[in-house]
């Protein structure tokens, strides 16, 4: 039984929430409590499977799963040289992202139980599970077209959830902007997949990488396809100057969804990394791509931090801060890619290039946790006061003591104050970026200080000051909300106090998986 679960974990992790999502409307007709229990159990099982899978992958390396094949490991049909069926390929990076997705979804679900009330809650949980399915599907798959399908699942469910409070009007606007932009990006992804298919008659990422990395079959069309994929995923990851949809969407989504959306954005970032590092790797002009990533990161940090300063809507402000955080990740990844390009495919990457990649990948997790916690607190404030305008809020620390403590933790982490997790990843990024370009590093540090100023602004205007008469009756947020915030806060403090443990055990396998293109190809095509 145990072996069976370990072997089939790559598909069970997707099938469980999917099955629960299909069952939700049926159970919802019978009993609301039963539905809540089922959704909770399904998400919990998914979380557990994610950790089982992670342990398996960290111990035994890359795991493949051939869907519908005669056996799980039979990636190529017997006696044939190209993969035909859809293959799930789970490496260190995939499980790293899967842990992020399942964890945030689990916490977000706990939060939603007390946040979402009234009509439509059944559909809410269906869509919520679909978001989880979309993220996990993107992260587990080894097939490009499959990636597109799950990208669309993620987009559609996110768009529907952003517009959940449709009566307010603004969520509708955010939602339609989000869905148009993301389906446009997804269509260009599909076009690029078509180009690759027409060129190589392959859809599997490992097999494609094998074809692309040989000089003879690398063509002009392949390059165009790369740019289309790159631009689309950068857009979906929310890098400036294509970030405009992101504050809209984050700002108007219901409480927990904002946090899960951060993880969803990181899933697109994962797709970007997969395309850059695994599918194309050194076939394209990697140093140029590295410089593009660095400049995108820099612009994102700058625009995100400065624009956040003038916002007066609380969640929109945090959304701009999220843009800046994405910038840090792109900056670090860009430096890593740039360094990787110097040594080509085979050589050993320089020390600081490796550290930059570690910092970037570690920061993906930290970004979700930090920004997620802030969104949860902001959601609780909105839940209690029904107000998100910073000019009207004030003095809530009198009634919401715990929430304000969680906000301080999140604020300190997101602006990189020691000893929290944000500092651990940011110092890796600063120091390694400094080796490549000192001025970039200094701008990044300054922007981090800027972020502290921004969040002091929120803290001052929401929690500080005298108790206002309009919020006199406000109480502390419900216990379940505080509990879910506490879960995130505890993880953040753990990551902050033991960064070496996290980097060695979770981040390093992910970074190694990113750089190990040959292993990824070999797992599909068999011992290259």
């Amino acid at each position, binding site marked *: 039984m145990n072996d069976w679960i370990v072997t089939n974990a790559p598909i069970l992790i997707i099938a469980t929430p999917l099955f629960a999502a299909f069952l939700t409307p049926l159970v919802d007709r019978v009993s609301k409590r039963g539905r809540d229990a089922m959704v909770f159990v399904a998400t919990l099982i998914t979380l557990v499977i994610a950790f089982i899978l992670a342990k398996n992958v960290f111990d035994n390396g890359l795991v493949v799963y051939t869907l519908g094949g005669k056996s799980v490991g039979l990636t190529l049909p017997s006696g044939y040289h190209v993969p035909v069926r859809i293959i799930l390929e789970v490496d260190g990076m995939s499980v790293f992202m899967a842990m992020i997705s399942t964890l945030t979804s689990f916490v977000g679900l706990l939060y939603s139980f007390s946040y979402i009330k009234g009509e439509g809650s059944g559909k809410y949980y269906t869509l919520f599970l679909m978001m989880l399915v979309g993220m996990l599907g993107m992260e587990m798959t080894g097939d490009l077209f499959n990636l597109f399908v799950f990208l669309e699942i993620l987009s559609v469910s996110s768009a529907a959830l952003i517009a959940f409070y449709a009566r307010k009007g603004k969520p509708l606007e955010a939602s*339609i*902007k989000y869905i*148009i*932009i993301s389906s*446009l*990006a997804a269509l*260009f992804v599909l076009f690029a997949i078509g180009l690759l298919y027409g060129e190589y008659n392959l859809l599997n990422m490992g097999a494609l990488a094998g074809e692309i990395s040989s000089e003879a079959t690398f063509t*002009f069309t392949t*390059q*165009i396809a*790369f*740019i289309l994929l*790159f*631009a689309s995923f950068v*857009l979906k990851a929310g890098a400036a*100057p*294509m970030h*405009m*949809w992101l504050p*809209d969407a984050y700002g108007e989504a219901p409480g927990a969804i904002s946090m899960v959306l951060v993880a969803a954005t990181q899933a697109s970032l994962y797709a970007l990394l997969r395309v850059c590092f695994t599918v194309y790797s050194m076939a*394209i*002009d990697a140093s*140029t*791509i590295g410089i*593009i990533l660095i400049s995108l990161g820099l612009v994102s940090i700058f*625009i995100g931090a*400065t*624009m956040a*300063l*003038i916002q*007066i809507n609380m969640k929109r402000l945090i959304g701009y801060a999220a843009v800046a955080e994405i910038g840090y990740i792109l900056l670090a990844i860009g430096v890593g890619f740039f360094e990787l390009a110097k040594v080509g495919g085979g050589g050993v990457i320089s*020390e*600081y290039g490796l*550290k930059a990649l570690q910092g970037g990948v570690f920061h993906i997790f930290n970004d979700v946790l930090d920004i997620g916690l802030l969104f949860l607190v902001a959601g609780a404030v909105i839940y209690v006061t029904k107000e998100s305008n*910073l*000019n009207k*809020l*004030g*003095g809530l620390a009198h009634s919401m003591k715990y929430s304000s403590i969680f906000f301080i933790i999140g604020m300190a982490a997101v602006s990189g104050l*020691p*000893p929290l997790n944000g500092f*651990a990843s940011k*110092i*890796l990024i600063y*120091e*390694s970026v400094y080796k490549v370009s000192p001025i970039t590093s200094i701008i990044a540090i300054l922007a981090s200080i800027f972020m502290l*100023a921004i969040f002091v*602004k*929120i803290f*001052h*205007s929401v929690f*500080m*000051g*005298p108790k206002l*008469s309009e919020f006199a009756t406000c109480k502390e947020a419900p216990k379940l909300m505080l509990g879910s915030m506490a879960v995130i806060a505890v993880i953040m403090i753990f990551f*902050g*106090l033991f*960064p*070496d443990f996290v*980097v060695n055990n979770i981040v390093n396998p992910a970074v190694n998986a990113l750089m190990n293109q040959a292993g990824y190809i070999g797992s599909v095509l068999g011992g290259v």
Partner: protein
Amino acid sequence: MALETTGGYWSPVIWLAAFIVAFLISYIIWGMGEKKHAKGEQEKPFLSGMEEPPKEEVHIRAENMYWGFTDTLRGYYDFMKKIHTGIINDYVLWFLGMATIFFIVVILPEVFK
């Protein structure tokens, strides 16, 4: 117990120890201060003899918090507000524009090589 970075290492435990030491020192210094503190008149602000307005009115609202900063950078912020139009067509234009820039930067050198 230490995270290796490019230039050295980062250890939260050492940091915490240093923090506690610094906290203790500052606590001792604080403890050496004036013990007697008269409550009452001393706490009220002196506003040239005017009445002190109620606290609700003194609370600085979010919009005014970094007024000096944003006013100095007004040119930059006006430009930023101008490009953040909120029109969906412009979002599409940014996407296609950036994709075109990527095309030009990455592919044109290859074409003319």
